[in-house]
């Protein structure tokens, strides 16, 4: 059986014109990157190659290669040259240091009443002691080359300005995810808790809420997991993660 010639291959005609236009449409780079983050695999691209770079010669080179990869998969076409310059400036900052959690115990904020995308409301912090509290100078998280290129964010760090590159948000969320995955859930949650303060635009908020939800759930902190789930469902009802969040909210 031979397939007929495709209409779009014809040299002229409205039908061919329409089909060619349809075939040329592309999603934004931002859309692809958000999918990688939502699936929790945006770091997979960078981790593999960055590990190779580390073997080839030292942390400085690792940073450079990591940045190249970050630019390739996250920055180019998404945030533009200005954004990349910002990331580069941060990446090469001599102030880069291991993550330090805000305090010895995890500090979380009640989130149910907070708007989906807003400056964090001033609420009373609640101490949670679900895990052994880290020492005051917490140990650095395990090396994850791709996350080391962004300056660490502490509770005292000023918020990044509106319009910060999406790449920085991706790296921040990846770092939190890596901490959680390596068993340092409290530090991961501390980072996630500071996400909206650091990035007022909060373009990855659905992903952050889902990661919080999963982490709280795994720790058995049901009330907080449900709070994150409710916020996700209320704020982002069409998010791919919303149905799983609903299941947690209404088992």
């Amino acid at each position, binding site marked *: 059986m031979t397939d007929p010639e495709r*209409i779009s291959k014809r040299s002229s005609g409205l039908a061919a014109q*329409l089909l060619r236009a349809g075939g040329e*449409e592309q999603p934004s780079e931002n859309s692809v990157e958000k*999918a990688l983050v939502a*699936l929790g*695999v945006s770091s997979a*691209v960078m981790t593999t190659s960055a590990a190779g770079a580390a073997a080839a010669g030292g942390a400085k080179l690792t940073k450079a290669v990591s940045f190249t990869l970050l630019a390739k998969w996250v920055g180019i076409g998404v945030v533009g040259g200005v954004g990349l310059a910002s990331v580069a400036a941060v990446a090469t900052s001599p102030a880069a240091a291991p993550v330090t959690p805000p305090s010895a115990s995890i500090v979380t904020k009640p989130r149910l009443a907070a708007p989906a995308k807003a400056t964090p409301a001033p609420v009373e912090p609640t101490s949670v002691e679900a895990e052994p509290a880290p020492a005051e100078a917490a140990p650095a998280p395990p090396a994850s080359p791709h996350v080391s290129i962004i300056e660490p964010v502490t509770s005292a760090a000023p918020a990044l300005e509106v319009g910060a590159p999406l790449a920085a948000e991706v790296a921040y969320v990846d770092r939190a995810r890596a901490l959680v995955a390596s068993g340092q859930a409290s530090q991961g949650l501390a980072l996630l808790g500071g996400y909206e303060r650091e990035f007022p635009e909060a373009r990855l908020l659905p992903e952050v809420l889902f990661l919080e939800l999963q982490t709280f759930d795994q720790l058995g902190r049901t009330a907080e997991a449900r709070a994150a789930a409710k916020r996700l469902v209320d704020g982002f009802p069409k998010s791919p993660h919303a149905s799983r969040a609903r299941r947690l909210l209404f088992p």
Partner: protein
Amino acid sequence: MAAEAAALDEPEMSAERLSAERPSSERVARLVREHYRFVWRLLRRLGLGEGDADDAAQQVFLAASGRLRTVEPARERSFLYGVALNVGARARRSLGRRREESLEAAGEREAREPNAEQVLERREARALLDQLLDEMPEDLRVVFVLFELEELSTPEIAEVCAIPVGTAASRLRRAREDFEERVARAEARRRFAGVAK
């Protein structure tokens, strides 16, 4: 393949099961990089708006990653298309009302569009294409989009849609006739609109 993809209609599963069945993150990342654009475009031509296609495409990969271990690399694309057809159909059902409204808007747009002799802007061309596809019967539309836009062969379409190859070929023939008739009518309406102005 379609049956396997249809099983993904219920994307929920326990965290333990998810963890046990999750393929390597490198494979999922590669899958997204290689196929996201095709999946997204397929969802667009199946009737979803740009923002809805973003959400639905994420849903496709989220659902697919749970079953990826059972899929041979050579069959990833048709597997993903099968999942995309299910996710797209579900999304369209939930967007039914919005879609009707957009069709009305498209009708108004068409009245303002230039003559067929004039070169169409790509965005306008895509709007008209989507309108014509929206009017096609669903079974014909799916086969038509997979063949004409995604350039799948008839046997590949048969696999994705879980239908015999002969049925796929027959639907494709009818779909092409249907589409060309609709284009001819649209062209005639444009000419008429041009004369009436």
